[in-house]
């Protein structure tokens, strides 16, 4: 049987990008199923995402934040029995042709989760601003200290998950700024995490969810969340038969 692959695309006010993002994925591989989670957008995202009929669109009745939106995707993947789920940003900064690269480790059963990273090797393309790179360095250090793994790009939202990880995250996923926290959560619960180098491009339009004064708040919140997650007990998992 063919492997079922779900591309989870969280979108909040992404009317400018969402249609192109879906089209780029479908153009690359028509077998990928696209799932857009419209996280209570106030613009035309819903219509734009539905317009070309290439994606299933889930419209959340109110805004949950990126974590809640992505978790909706995991729940959908679990209910519909998908083998792999790819988290893919709705703003056009990830490239569809990199999907096989982050899927490969899962398909060879080398890892449960694979993160597309900008920093494993010096890749070309978009590298983020100086301040952000410092923040990402701090997260990387925390990963080393808290779960003793080398994960260089904790904030990357370009990730692949296998069935086991999907089931786990459908039940346990952080809400606000989930990426760095999830790395700790998964590491703590003995999931195999790997990183592969990918290229990203600068966002095509819309606004980043984190900017300006918010970034200090973001750093403190995320560091606290990472520390707390590392303190928690392992969550008991029922193996999939």
């Amino acid at each position, binding site marked *: 049987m063919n492997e079922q692959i779900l591309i989870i695309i969280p979108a909040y006010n992404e009317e400018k990008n969402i249609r192109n993002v879906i089209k780029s994925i479908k153009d690359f591989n028509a077998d990928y199923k696209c799932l857009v*989670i419209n996280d209570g957008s106030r613009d035309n995202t819903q219509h734009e995402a539905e317009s070309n009929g290439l994606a*299933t*669109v*889930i*419209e*959340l*009745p*109110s805004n*949950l934040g990126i974590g*809640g939106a992505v*978790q*909706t995707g995991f*729940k*959908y993947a679990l*209910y519909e029995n998908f083998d792999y789920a790819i988290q893919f940003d709705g703003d056009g900064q990830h490239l569809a042709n990199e999907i096989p690269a982050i899927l490969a480790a899962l398909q060879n059963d080398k890892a449960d989760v694979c993160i597309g990273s900008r920093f494993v090797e010096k890749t070309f393309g978009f590298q983020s601003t100086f301040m952000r790179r410092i923040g990402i360095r701090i997260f990387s250090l925390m990963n080393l200290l808290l779960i003793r793994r080398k994960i260089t790009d904790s904030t990357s939202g370009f990730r692949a998950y296998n069935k086991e990880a999907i089931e786990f995250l459908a039940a346990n996923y952080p*809400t606000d700024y989930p990426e760095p926290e999830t790395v700790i959560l998964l590491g703590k619960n003995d999931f195999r995490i790997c990183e592969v180098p990918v290229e990203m491009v600068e966002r095509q339009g819309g606004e980043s969810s984190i900017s300006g004064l918010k970034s200090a708040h973001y750093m403190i919140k995320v560091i606290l969340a990472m520390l707390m997650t590392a303190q928690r007990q392992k969550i008991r998992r029922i193996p999939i038969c």
Partner: protein
Amino acid sequence: MLANLLEYLLANRVQVFSIIGSLLLFLFILKLVKRKKLKEEYSLLWLAFGTIFIVLSIFKPLLEIVASIIGIVYAPAALLLILVISVFFILIQFSIVISKLAEGNKNLIQEVGILKAEIKKLQQSFKDRKTE
């Protein structure tokens, strides 16, 4: 006799007021629970602190004992401290309840979203079959 009592009450107006006040609080909470405006689960903390206040205001020496244990010279200040502590506890309970509500709310929103998409899909396939 009656005059004596009246004189005592007048001299200890604070005590009278605090007994009446804490009794009213206690009865008010009970009434809310009876009318189902307040869940039993969340009334417990209120009732517990209400009881403490009633007991403390009736047995004046008790408050002085408590104050001297903590090391407070002016006994009524101990009452204030207990009041602040109780308000703290109740507020923390609120934060816990809000977090629980937020979690439930998030799950509901997610499920509603998935179901809505599911229904749309079903309606579409039903329409398609009709037109065939």
